[in-house]
């Protein structure tokens, strides 16, 4: 077993031993349960109104309600996964060194970048797995209760996986010079800035002010994990047209935006650059 696999395996086992995985499973299950119950009751009310003839556009309501609910679930899952990734990765380097854990790994003949990338991979794997399972369960619950299914769930999952990996990379990079709490705060601030970018974009679109919308777009592109979330939102709502489509695609904290190959390449390059900066800093660090 090489250095990367050894550290990856140990990091995954450590997260499991710290009950991180257990907390994620229990709270994820609780989230899916609450979402399913809420969807059931909301859909029961909407269906009753449609049956009673109170809705003017029943066909649109059958798309608007489940798509909005699933969009909210996706945002919540994305948010929780990003926070989980931050907590998993923020203490990865300096925090571990402060505890006296890292030094005995670094003196072994394993490159420092291997240590960093393996720890990042472990955190990203867990956070992505959490996101994938929770979102897939929410999609299943939506389908069972309402009969509606997202247009392209697989693509949305891949885009969100890339977004979470980018956030994990940021947290890992901050963890090189900063201790766990500081690295976590810095990452969440950057994550929040991305959300504000999405909000600005929505606001600009809503009030019809191009400069505000462009500012939001620029911010979302500069922090491409937000752009990937918007692309995931676009992937699940692709088949919805008309006014309903416009409403659904506005989404929470960032409207849907189609992911061009260039945007995805930018997100991948951005993440790679963040990792490269972290590796460069780690190589120059004293422990």
């Amino acid at each position, binding site marked *: 077993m090489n250095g990367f696999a*050894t550290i990856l395996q140990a990091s995954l086992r450590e997260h499991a031993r710290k009950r991180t995985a257990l907390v994620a499973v229990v709270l994820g299950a609780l989230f899916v349960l609450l979402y399913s119950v809420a969807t059931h009751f909301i859909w029961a009310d909407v269906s009753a109104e449609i049956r009673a003839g109170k809705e003017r556009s029943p066909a649109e309501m059958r798309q608007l309600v489940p798509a909005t609910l699933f969009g909210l679930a996706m945002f919540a899952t994305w948010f929780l996964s990003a926070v989980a990734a931050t907590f998993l990765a923020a203490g990865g380097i300096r925090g571990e060194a402060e505890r006296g854990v890292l030094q005995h790994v670094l003196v072994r003949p394993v490159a420092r970048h291997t240590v960093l990338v393996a720890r990042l991979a472990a955190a990203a794997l867990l956070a992505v797995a959490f996101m994938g399972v929770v979102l897939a369960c929410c999609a299943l619950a939506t389908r069972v209760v309402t009969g509606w299914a997202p247009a392209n769930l697989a693509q949305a999952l891949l885009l969100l996986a890339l977004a979470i990996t980018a956030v994990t990379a940021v947290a890992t990079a901050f963890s090189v010079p900063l201790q766990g709490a500081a690295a976590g705060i810095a990452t969440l601030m950057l994550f929040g800035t991305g959300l504000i970018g999405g909000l600005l974009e929505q606001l600009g679109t809503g009030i019809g002010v191009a400069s505000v919308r462009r500012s939001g777009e620029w911010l979302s592109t500069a922090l491409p994990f937000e752009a990937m979330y918007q692309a995931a939102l676009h992937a699940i709502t692709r088949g919805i047209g008309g006014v309903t489509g416009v409403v659904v695609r506005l989404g929470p904290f960032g409207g849907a935006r189609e992911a061009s190959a260039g945007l995805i390449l930018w997100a991948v390059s951005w993440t790679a650059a963040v990792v490269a900066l972290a590796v460069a800093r780690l190589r120059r660090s004293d422990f």
Partner: protein
Amino acid sequence: MRKAYGRTTALAGVSLEVRPGEVLGLLGPNGAGKSTTMKIAAGLVRADAGEAQVGGAAAGSPGARRQIGYLGELFRFPDWMRPDEMLQFHQRLAGATGGAEERDRLLRLVGLGDPAVRGRRLGTFSKGMQQRAGIAQALVGEPRLVLLDEPTSALDPQGRVEVRALMHHLRERGVAVVVNTHLLTEVERTCDRVAILFGARVVRELALDGAGGLAGASDAAPLLVRTDRGEHRRDRASDDDVAALIAQLVQAGERVFEVRRAVPTLEHVYLSAIAGAVP
């Protein structure tokens, strides 16, 4: 080597060498630069100037790291690991091929060979037991240079005796050992050579005779003769002069109670080296 952390000078020109089969002790007050010296050798800290080599490879390079074992002053292993798992983890990272046989041998060597102890997680170990596990970890892969930073600080007297025996064992196998400690008695009993660091420099280097004394110190030490009339001191008396000196005193009517040499102890040398280096 030179090293500064911001405005604080950790090393201001330190030059040291440890040879195969030699145990070098680093002594000095806190902040003298002992741990920094070790960390540079281990590749954890980069020197601002100068270079460190391990068996001909630049410190910190993969070639150097393949040859070293390191136990830091402040360390912690994952609480959830068992000693065997921790050693296996380090075997994999070190590329060591010793397998279960090596793990078994190392755990026995540090007194953790009991199956009941081996079955426990490291998080349940006392500080002393963790230090033993740390020493075993430092010996994974049969390193040529072992760096031990305060290896006996948490050990009971029995543990210290065992670590002493371990260092003798390493010396016999031709392993170079650098040990950083504040315990002068440990240094006297285990080290071949001592470097005293103070103010980020080596202020004194001296050899030990392996029996708790300073090499060559006893022959040069003044001779003290205690009689009923007081103590007589002869600064340049050889062992051959002792009989004549006693005869001379007895002839003069004095009753001789004790003859000894005022051999300087490591403690005296250490304190005088520190005092002499104070600006």
